[in-house]
């Protein structure tokens, strides 16, 4: 009997540390964020709570009029619209090529393409800033060797966004390629054998067997990649710090800057809730879109 009562408490003992930490640092903060987004809390309010006052939806009203916030939304959409398809096409393409290879050497390519995704973002940013350097950088040197004009990689507002996408793409390929490879290896070989007997060529096999069967993996990757781009932060933060002229500021960077550099905690919290709601809506739309297409 005693051991029975003991084992009733045991599972709670095992989950308690993890659950408490998750509640304190993940669940509870959501409510805190919601509350402070309706207040004018700043650095003074941090020290003395009596100076904080309730301002209703003032923060939200102000933030949607903030020209920098609007610009950051535009930039983030730019990242999503170009970044998501690029990540999917490149990682799927590389996964297909690696999967096509029969020799053992092809396994080594997995390591090469995966490597950028595990390396430190600051180190990577430092290296790419050097590569992108207009005078001393390797990229412009190679362009000049080919008698092409230098490109203002990080100096031109549009080009800077493209340069950041290139860097983030380089880092994003690895993980997604592995997900696609795992999915590709799950497709039974017999499907292809049957198709070959029916005389289907490689292209037909790709479009009629492989891609339809990868639909779930493609859906998973597109959702996670989209959420990732919506939260795009570290690359613009370290490389351009949002510049030139806020042309690379993402919504996440806008939130960080208002929260930690300007100490407008309430204002930043309002911005973060708008981002949160946007992520939820976009994800739900994607799920709905996916459900419509699941007839085969």
């Amino acid at each position: 009997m005693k051991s029975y009562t003991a084992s009733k408490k045991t599972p709670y003992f095992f989950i308690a540390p993890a659950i408490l930490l998750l509640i304190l640092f993940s669940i509870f903060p959501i409510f805190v964020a919601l509350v402070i987004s309706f207040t004018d809390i700043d650095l003074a309010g941090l020290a003395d709570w009596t100076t904080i006052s309730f301002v209703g939806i003032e923060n939200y009203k102000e933030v949607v009029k903030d020209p920098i916030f609007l610009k950051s939304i535009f930039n983030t959409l730019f990242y999503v619209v170009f970044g998501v398809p690029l990540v999917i096409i490149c990682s799927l393409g590389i996964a297909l090529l690696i999967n096509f290879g029969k020799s053992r050497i092809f396994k080594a390519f997995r390591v090469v393409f995966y490597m950028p995704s595990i390396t430190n973002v600051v180190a990577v940013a430092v290296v790419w800033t050097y590569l992108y350097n207009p005078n001393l950088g390797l990229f412009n040197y190679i362009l000049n060797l080919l008698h092409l004009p230098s490109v203002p990689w990080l100096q031109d507002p549009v080009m800077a966004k493209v340069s950041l996408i290139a860097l983030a793409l380089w880092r994003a390929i690895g993980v997604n390629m592995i997900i696609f490879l795992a999915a590709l290896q799950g497709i039974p070989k017999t499907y292809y054998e049957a198709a070959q007997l029916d005389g289907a060529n490689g292209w037909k096999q790709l479009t009629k067997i492989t891609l339809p069967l990868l639909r779930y993996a493609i859906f998973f990757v597109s959702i996670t990649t989209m959420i990732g781009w919506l939260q795009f932060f570290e690359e613009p933060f370290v490389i351009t710090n949002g510049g030139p002229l806020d042309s690379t500021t993402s919504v996440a960077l806008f939130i960080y800057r208002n929260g930690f550099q300007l100490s407008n905690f309430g204002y930043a919290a309002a911005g973060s809730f708008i981002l949160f709601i946007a992520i939820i809506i976009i994800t739900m739309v994607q799920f709905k879109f996916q459900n419509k297409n699941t007839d085969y």
Partner: protein
Amino acid sequence: MKTNIMERPTKPLHKPEANPERKSKAQQWLVGIILAIGGLLVAIPFIWMILSAFKTESEVVQIPPTLFPNEFTMENFQNLFKNMNFSVYLKNTIVIVLWSFVGLFLNAMAGYAFAKFEFRGREKLFYLVLATMMIPGQVTMIPVYLILNEMNLTNTMAGIVLPSLVGAFGIFLFRQFMSTIPDELLEAARLDGASELRVFVQIVLPMSKPIIAVQGILTFIAGWNSFLWPLIIANDESLYTLSVGLSLLKGQYGGNFALQMAGSTFMVVPIILIFILFQKHIIDGYTISGMK
């Protein structure tokens, strides 16, 4: 010409046998070459980083640039420790990595309970855990800072470590793996009088080696790379991690690319070595964890 035409009817008989094989071999080579070129492009930043780290400061700004260092120097690496506090940053980073292994243990404990015990609220609590995966970092960033501030933990190591100590994804993966451990084994140990903690440490953990290997490596990489939270919480340079120190270096020595490349190499090469050593575990880990 004439003989050619005459021979034609016989050729198709050979074709289906010899040609597809040669064609597929050519295709294999083509794909291999495409991947090799792609792989080289992907590796260029790393190659350039490592080569530049051993060049002198004047050689790095030289035009046209040299591929291999003319004068092989370790001076940049020495400068990291002499002029910058890289030894302090390295120590802090290692402390964070060690703490994150404590977090790994807590994740394993929670995953074990969710996998192997029946208790009230199990389903609900597990959904709660999964729900935390969907909360974007930007939303919790400011409130977590305020909470830590209330707990007087800003500018402390505890404040840097605690918020990311446990993670829903880790708990989820441990639960998935540990639910395959047979109940009979645990029961037998309990009948032999082993305490619950002992069952966990001496039976469950050794049986979960594959998932611990994957999680351990990923935990190490995440701890080694931790950047944003140390940046927010640490005001004192004595608490900076390698990545925070490196971003400081980028600001202070913006023009000294050789030094910057040395700092980056110092951060990246250990991770690359660990990754190459254990890559089989990591890459296969995605298949273990059923991410198909």
